[in-house]
């Protein structure tokens, strides 16, 4: 059963307010996702395909057979006819269902059969932009594939990449990502190849930090299990801090007697780091994974030698500040361009 999902391009400002995709609001790119059932056709969509920038087809990795492949090819041909500049992506999904060897083999076969069929129809399809990704919801491969799809829609991508390419060697980082913190999709990365183990680790780190964020707040979220007294307590409390990080006013101090200075959330950027040891390496060299919030929704994650992070912290922070300035300028540009549209 080939499936299709349509990505609406963000050409008009009115439509954009509805966009609540994966937490990608007001990041580098505003986008809208259409999630369509299996029986959708180009006609039944009700909107011309010229309005879309990308189509993602989702096909089960076990669907190597004639029928699902034909349906997929049919849709590809129809979409291409209507909008030749549309980006076509195929997610070969539920990959974790198969063993490693079968996985690669099935993936290769699906890829080959679709391409062969298309070329049989017309040699013109050779130039078609058609990309295949192996995905599963049980690991971060879906995040990685989605990130790659996203990259083609980010106009400022080369500038963001350039900033990362400058940042990495300055702090001896072998790999750095700019992530959207809530969706855990990466918006850009430096030129070194993405290794999925590192990518997975970054996703897991973000997941952990997102969960820690509210955990030690003085005003905890009310659990359904706790009784009503929790609500009373928080309103009468003299030392509540803002529950939402977006709060701009300075929160009152938590230690009641002497008023402590508090973080001005306008100028404060959360950061974190975790140190990892490689048990296999005899030198005991350790790696640090650092996290720096760059804008409200974007975070820079970088791997770097722990010695650099510990002994040359000033250098790291300086480069982060420089990087942040660059990204914020790009975002401001984009915002400006969008409003002007």
């Amino acid at each position, binding site marked *: 059963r080939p499936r299709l999902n349509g990505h609406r391009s963000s050409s008009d400002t009115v439509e954009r307010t509805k966009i609540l995709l994966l937490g990608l609001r007001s990041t580098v790119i505003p986008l809208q996702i259409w999630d369509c059932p299996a029986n959708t056709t180009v006609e039944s969509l009700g909107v011309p395909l010229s309005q879309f920038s990308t189509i993602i087809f989702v096909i089960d990795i076990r669907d190597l057979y004639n029928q699902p492949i034909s349906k997929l090819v049919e849709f590809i041909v129809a979409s291409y006819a209507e909008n030749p500049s549309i980006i076509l992506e195929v997610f070969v999904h539920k990959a974790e269902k198969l063993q490693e060897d079968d996985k690669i083999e099935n993936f290769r076969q699906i890829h080959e059969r679709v391409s062969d069929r298309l070329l049989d129809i017309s040699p013109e399809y050779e130039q078609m932009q058609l990309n295949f990704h192996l995905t599963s919801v*049980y690991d971060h491969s879906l995040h990685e594939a989605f990130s790659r799809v996203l990259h083609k829609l980010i106009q400022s991508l080369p500038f963001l990449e350039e900033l990362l390419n400058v940042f990495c060697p300055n702090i001896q980082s072998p790999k750095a990502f700019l992530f959207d913190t809530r969706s855990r999709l990466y918006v850009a990365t430096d030129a070194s190849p993405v290794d999925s*183990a*590192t990518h*997975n*680790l970054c996703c*897991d*780190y973000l997941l*952990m*930090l997102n*969960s*820690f*964020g*509210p*955990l*030690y*707040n*003085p*005003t*905890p*979220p009310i*659990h359904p*299990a*706790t009784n009503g*007294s*929790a609500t009373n*307590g*928080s309103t009468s*409390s003299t*030392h509540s*801090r*803002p529950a939402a*990080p977006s709060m701009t006013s300075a929160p009152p101090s*938590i*230690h*009641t007697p002497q008023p*402590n*200075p*508090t*973080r001005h*959330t306008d100028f*404060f950027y*959360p*950061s*974190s*780091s*975790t*140190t*990892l*040891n*490689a*048990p*296999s390496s005899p030198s005991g060299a*350790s*790696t640090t994974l650092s996290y720096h919030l760059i804008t409200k929704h974007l975070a820079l994650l970088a791997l770097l030698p722990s010695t650099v992070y510990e002994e040359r912290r000033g250098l790291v922070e300086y480069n982060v500040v420089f990087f942040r300035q660059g990204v914020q300028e790009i975002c401001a540009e984009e915002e400006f361009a969008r409003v002007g549209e």
Partner: protein
Amino acid sequence: MGASGSGKTSMRSLIFSNNPASLTARLGATIDVEQNHVRFLGDLVLNLWDCGGQDSFMDSYLTTQRATIFKQVGVMIYVFDVETREMGKDLEYYRDCLAGLQQYSPDAAIFLLVHKMDLVREPRLTAFQRKKQELQDASGDAVISVLGTSMYDESLYKAWSNIVHTLIPNAAILTKHLQTFAGACNATEVILFERTTFLVIASSSPTPTSLDTSLELEGTTGIPKLDAKRYERTSELIKAFKHSCSRVREEFRSLEMELYDFTAVLDEMTRNTYVMVIIHDPTIEIAAVKLNIRLARRKFEELQSDSLVS
């Protein structure tokens, strides 16, 4: 102890072997008794007996193996599947085990875990209360603790932290020293975790075992009211991240966070413990906290070796 399929081996694998919950689907039924020595806090060796729960094994524990099974027990953990369709039989075996325990190890602590709470759809609290009452009625005048657990959330860490707590001789002394340490760091709270399991051993907050009462502490101690589940959530989060690290063949060592609402440092305290320092005062520098941890290491190392020898 507990019926077959109730989740005993799954728990053991989650808490003591750093495995994710998804892997437990592959576990087969345990044959007879699987004995495990788990080193806890370095020198404290827990001798864990995972008793296969099929009827034939249970019958033999209660008859021919009775003395072997029930002698020298420190803690009995009896696991009940919350969704069981054979509660009558479960309770019957449980009563027999209780009798065996009272005969051979009358001082053993008893924990009853109502497990797989994630499967309960109706209000969980009501379902749990009902089970708890049923279990209390079945236990006569034995002193028991009944806890609801699921391997898919932090409740399992809470239950096991309570269990190991009964085995740590100097928990009260540790709490006192952690309070001193918290004062030195200007910390809201300091929590001590066991290194491999990441179970909570002690914390600077007054009653780490009865976390539900933490709401009432507010005002009397000046400690801000924090989420009652924070300890076990922390155990769960760190364990999950440790697992992610191991997948890239790295070993988790430390973590520091400067977030909007608090600053936290998690680092090695002794060879067998990790400490987490939670600070709500934004003027405190992480470097200072790390220095304090370094300075406190020897003291805590001594404390630990003293108490475990005695």
